[in-house]
């Protein structure tokens, strides 16, 4: 009887472990497999480079995770990146010094937040599905980016500004540092702050949340503002990395971001998700991209393989849980 209970406990722990870390295992396996195949894949330099490449859409994915946990979605991230990048670049171009750089990042965040505010207000107060609200914003923000930049790339040549995308601190690229900072802050927000709690409650059951006195509307607005601000930040980061803002930036990033969140285990039905797993999801995509490129896989095949890996990862994860 006792041993039975123990076995059961062990099984529960095992299941829980797979549930929680299944995707992490898949990430590790993927990384190991690629390291065996490709020389120098398992180097610090390469890992940092993956992190750097992931950082921008990874940050968007964190914002999207919040939206998905409430049971919503945010499709406007990629377009906000474009808008924020041209706004940020136009502020900084030709200037020197960190003042303008900070101003440019601030402006990018601001622009993103405003887009998010619109998304959130329409969703929360207008009661229209976030899919549509953010789809509309996706089109609008892209249009505004083009309008603002007259459809052309905007030069962002300012040493201070580009040093953020180029520079390193103790060997760690600036963008990676920003990513880590954002992740930590958002993780705390999601798991340790009232706001995060309410985000989960809304996704779990919005009626119950309301009855418990959660201000559903304001929380939703905050979520979309956060998602927008993070996309804006990603836009500024990209501009600093690419030495320019461009209205074509961020094309389809929203889908990559959503994929990262869902691969990480965020449920599109809402109520389930975490920043940590969203990072794992983003890394799976990043490692895969890097590996396929370094192996020199034919780009047509790359897309096919990418699609298959995404599906297999989620499938494997689902299967594992079912069995356990």
């Amino acid at each position, binding site marked *: 009887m006792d041993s039975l209970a123990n076995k059961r406990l062990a099984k529960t722990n095992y299941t829980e472990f797979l549930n929680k870390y299944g995707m992490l295992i898949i990430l590790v396996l993927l990384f190991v497999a690629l390291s065996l195949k490709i020389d120098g894949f398992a180097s610090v330099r390469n890992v940092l480079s993956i992190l750097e490449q992931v950082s921008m859409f990874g940050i968007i994915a964190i914002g999207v995770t919040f939206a998905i946990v409430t049971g919503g979605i945010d499709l406007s991230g990629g377009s906000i990146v474009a808008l924020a990048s041209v706004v940020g670049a136009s502020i900084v171009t030709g200037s020197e010094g960190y003042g303008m750089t900070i101003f440019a990042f601030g402006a990018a965040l601001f622009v993103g937040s405003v887009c998010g505010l619109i998304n959130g207000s329409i969703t929360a107060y207008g009661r229209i599905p976030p899919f549509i609200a953010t789809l509309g914003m996706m089109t609008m923000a892209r249009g505004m980016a083009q309008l603002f930049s007259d459809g052309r790339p905007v030069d962002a040549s300012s040493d201070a500004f580009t040093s953020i995308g180029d520079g390193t601190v103790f060997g760690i690229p600036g963008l990676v540092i920003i990513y880590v900072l954002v992740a930590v802050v958002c993780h705390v927000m999601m798991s340790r702050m009232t706001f995060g709690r309410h985000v989960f*409650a809304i996704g779990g059951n919005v009626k119950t949340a309301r009855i418990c006195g959660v201000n559903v509307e304001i929380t939703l607005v905050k979520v979309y503002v956060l998602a927008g601000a993070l996309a804006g930040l990603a836009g500024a980061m990209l501009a600093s990395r690419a030495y320019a803002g461009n209205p074509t930036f961020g094309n389809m990033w929203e889908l990559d971001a959503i994929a990262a969140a869902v691969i990480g285990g965020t449920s599109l039905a809402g109520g389930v998700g975490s920043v940590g797993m969203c990072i794992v999801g983003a890394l799976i995509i990043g490692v895969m991209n890097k590996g396929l490129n370094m192996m020199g896989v034919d780009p047509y095949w790359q897309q096919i393989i990418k699609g298959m890996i995404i599906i297999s990862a989620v499938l494997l994860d689902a299967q594992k849980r079912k069995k356990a």
Partner: protein
Amino acid sequence: MTNSDSILEMINVSKTFPGVKALDQVNLTIRKGSIHALMGENGAGKSTLMKILYGLYTPDEGGEILFDGQPFTPKVPIDAIRTGLAMVPQEISPSGNLSVAANFFLGRELRKGFLMDHQAMNKETAKVLDELGIPMKVETLMQDVSVAKAQLLAIATAVSYDAKLIIMDEPTTALTESEVQQLYKIVRKVQERGISIIYISHKLGEVFELSDEVSVIRDGEYIGTKQTSDITKEELINMMVGREMDEMFERERVEIGETLLEVNNLSLPGKFEDISFDVKKGEVFGIAGLVGAGRSEVVEAIFGYKAAQSGDIYLHGKRVEIYKPMDAIKQRIGFVTEDRKLTGLMLNMSVTDNMIMPELGPYIQSGLISDELASHVAEDMKKQLRIKTPTVDTIIDNLSGGNQQKVLIARWLLLEPEVLILDEPTKGIDVGAKAEIYKLIVELARLGKAIIIVSSEMLELLSLSDRIMVMAEGREIGIVDREQATQEVILEMAAGGEVPSEQTIDTSDLRIEGVA
């Protein structure tokens, strides 16, 4: 006219939904420190009235609400909570991925600086649960908590608000007898603190046990308020239904024929083991047991919803293979599930669509579904079961809980089943409707159908069943015949407790409740 004696006064409150006048000039006064029962048939408007108080619905113009002598117009639940109102809603659905403590403190989380104070919240939750005698680990995820515990938690949560008035909307539908007793204790404890309670229930026993006053609404209209001590059960039923009715249902007996369904050694390890019984034509077969005894699992297995691992099922003496519900439906087995929301309703579909789903064949004319025919049939059912709905095309979400249940029963009646399984068929159903459903069951029996009823209501089982199988912890304890299974015999078996109370049958700690 403010009455310093009353905590809440509702004057001429009305509420109109598209197509329905849910409340019509209702007046209700709740005295300070009293337990006030609110009764009425399904769809009478009880929940609607409470939702208005909680800021979930806006009442029509013209009415007035006074809380503690002050005009009270809550727009959102927070307004109500701040004013001193707390509610246990009728259908609780907590956030499954949050812990017990998180659900307990939802919307009023404790903080230390910017961060939530998990420790303090856990401690505080544990303290409150402990005080109220609810054994629960505060860090368990809500999805792993049973419905009964969740219900108790909701009550504990409401109590823990610093409220002057607590509304409980059918708090006992998911509880067993022992937990009901616990609820009584909690309610009385709360009353001692000078807090008023509005207690909505369809169970007369509870109302007489607990309340000081009882108000009745019927069809959205206020009928009256009485001191509970001044009124008899019969009078109360009369007020509710508007006609004379017996509390106990006296069923007529019908001829019992040959064996129709036979279950042999049905097992699903971990859930139930070695269940064997048979049901004859015209027989009503009851299954009794505690919540969690595995009764639902057994009938789900018979229906093929969660297939059994071993055992055989025979219909008309022939072995049948049932792996999925479709197999059961083909054998004309019907199944009213116990959880309306989870496995019963298709919330955003019409009453008609909800009814006809299991078998669309009869409505197909020249290859296409005829909506007219379907509506026509649904209309008949609506009349037959007295389902209260504006039209049969109404979205089922807008029906009151009891009426939703009737639609689900209608669904399986339409299948013209040989075997009908009903799992808690009268959960949340008013006295009048219950009697109608009982009549229907007997009518089906007369037609030679076999009927299986799983129920936690002792009176229901006793008055309906020809035989009762008792289960505990997934095992079959025994089958009791009607002759022995009168209330008295079972009470005797259970060593002479009173109704309602807990009895013990056999050596197991099986308890059967008997609340009317």
